[in-house]
């Protein structure tokens, strides 16, 4: 085990897979010579050379389109979109082309590629550089969607994403890049589609993702120590495939669900989880399902404002208390 930051784990995951498989190639803006604007890919150019680690122009449609064409002809590209908000400039390639073409061609084409991006708020970057858009991807059939919360998961899930024969949207939460954690030094691969119970509890299930996982854990500590409420915290990790089994098992025991997401209010993944539970575990429920989200607003820039609107540990505690009271 090594102590690595979340950002270092990105590089480790990519490097592990590039060493293993010559068909893995990597492209994006300022990723090669400069090592990425978040410094997540430092050293890859030096190790793997300019044929495999390539800088691109500011042409997101070309980046994603090239990754798509390369993946359907034998390569396994990893493409970086600098901020996940920018998926909007190449959404056709992602949502209409990559996601649909296997199905439309009766299974003839495969797209073993990974689209990585820095996702989420908390960095005072304002409304166009702070969105959590994993819900955009989840709404599109044909895309797998992953968002790790720890350095170890970054490495393991990224490796699994590269090996996966389907297109994977890999969301790195930019507010987590600096956190540290133990990461296996040897080959490390975590299967996609498996949620992790990060804290066991009896009274309420809290489902969270990425940067919301540590906040949910904080909230759970407070709930235990100050309110005597025992919260189970699930790190969803993978939205597609979704581990509904772990979710439903947990809720069937606790009888209560709170989801915590950075997405704006409407149509986030929290709504999907809530709906699944409201249909399939209805008779186990002992109270309303509560979603904690950002309000349905663009994110403001100033620190005071951004902090006021993003889900906080206190906000989670308040919601749980409201629910169990």
């Amino acid at each position, binding site marked *: 085990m090594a102590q690595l930051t979340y950002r270092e784990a990105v590089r480790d995951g990519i490097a592990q897979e590039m060493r293993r498989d010559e068909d893995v*190639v990597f492209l994006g803006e300022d990723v090669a010579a400069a090592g990425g604007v978040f410094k997540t890919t430092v050293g890859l150019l030096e190790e793997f050379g300019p*044929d495999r680690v*390539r800088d*691109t*122009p500011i*042409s*997101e*449609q*070309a*980046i*994603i*389109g*090239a*990754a*798509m*064409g*390369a*993946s*359907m*002809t*034998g*390569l396994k*590209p990893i493409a970086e979109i600098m901020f996940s908000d920018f998926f909007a400039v190449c959404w*056709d*390639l992602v949502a*209409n*082309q990559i996601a649909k*073409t*296997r*199905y*439309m*061609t*009766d*299974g*003839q*084409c*495969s797209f*073993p590629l990974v689209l990585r991006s820095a996702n989420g708020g908390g960095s005072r970057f304002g409304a166009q550089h702070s969105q959590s858009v994993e819900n955009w991807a989840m709404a599109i*059939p*044909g895309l797998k969607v992953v968002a790790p919360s720890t350095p170890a998961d970054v490495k393991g899930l990224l490796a699994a994403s590269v090996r*996966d*024969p*389907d297109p994977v949207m890999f969301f790195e939460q930019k507010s987590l890049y600096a956190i540290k954690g133990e990461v296996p030094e040897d080959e490390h691969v975590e299967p996609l*589609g*498996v949620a992790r119970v990060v804290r066991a509890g009896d009274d309420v299930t809290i489902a969270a993702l990425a940067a919301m996982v540590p906040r949910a854990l904080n909230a759970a500590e407070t709930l235990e120590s100050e309110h005597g409420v025992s919260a189970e915290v699930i790190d969803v990790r993978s939205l*597609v*495939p*979704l*581990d*509904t*089994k772990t979710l439903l098992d947990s809720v069937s025991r606790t009888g209560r669900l709170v989801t915590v997401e950075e997405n704006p209010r409407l149509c986030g993944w929290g709504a999907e989880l809530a709906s699944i539970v409201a249909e399939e575990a209805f008779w186990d429920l002992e109270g309303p399902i509560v979603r904690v989200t950002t309000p349905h607003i663009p994110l403001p820039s100033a620190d005071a404002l951004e902090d006021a609107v993003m889900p906080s540990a206190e906000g989670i505690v308040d919601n749980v208390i409201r629910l169990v009271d």
Partner: protein
Amino acid sequence: MYECRVLEQRAYDLFMQNLVKGTSHLALGQEAVAAGFGTAMREDDYTFCTYRGHNHTYVRGVTMTSILGELMGRECGLLRGKGGSMHLTSVENGAMGSYAIIGAHLPVAAGAAWTAQYKRTGQVSVCFFGDGTTNIGAFHEALNFAVIWNLPVVFVCENNLYMEYTPIGEVTAVENPAADRAAAYGLESIIIDGNDVEVVYEAACASLDKARRGDGPTLIEAQTYRHGGHSRADPGKYRPDEELQSWLARDPIPTYRQRLLDLGVPEAAVEAIESETDAAIDEATEEARNSPPPPVEIAHIDVWADGGASWRN
């Protein structure tokens, strides 16, 4: 080329008989472009084309039955009805897909060329699109990208003078929508007669060779015309009659037939090919017509590489 003609003509007839559902976009009049390239391409080269891609797919070796079957939504269809007329694809023939949203397949074709370059296979990626496509962002990004990476890709703009119903000249800042932009990517400006299959063949050979030599992309503007409307039952009334007539007079099929005769090919030989083709299209039509609709279960497979469609455990 004659095969392309009868295939498109038959697709039209079937549409009029309400046997083709949804939409279909015919390339009647534009056959020389697909035929010229199809002949020049190596078997393992890649084709990327549009919704108007029946010919481009056919010339790679796909059967008439599977194309007509796909248009009619039958089990024998190339995609068993899952894609439809706008998405003909046959990976085993190098026909890497027909793309229905303008511009998207240009960078995708560049990506396939990247694989060829990376693996040093000598394959070339050929990408067909229309004049209207030159005004969308993806065109610009793909051209610049392909040039700076020096990719083995040939971009072929079939300028048929119209987007759907709007004349290209009304919405484009330059006269030749592709050729006048080549310089913006450091490329040579190339305009060819897209109705002359031999001219197309020559241009195809030159650009394919160049790409295979490692000398990078080419952008070709092939001037041509569609005899019919944009899609389905569009009668194409927005086109001046003289314009239509003058292009009909340059129909690539009779033009090339005459050239063959002039070169001394016996008319009987030409007729033999024609009647063989006519018989083949009739047979294919029958086969496709007799094919059942696809089993509904296939709607629920092949979202993922494991063959399934499940998003949960």
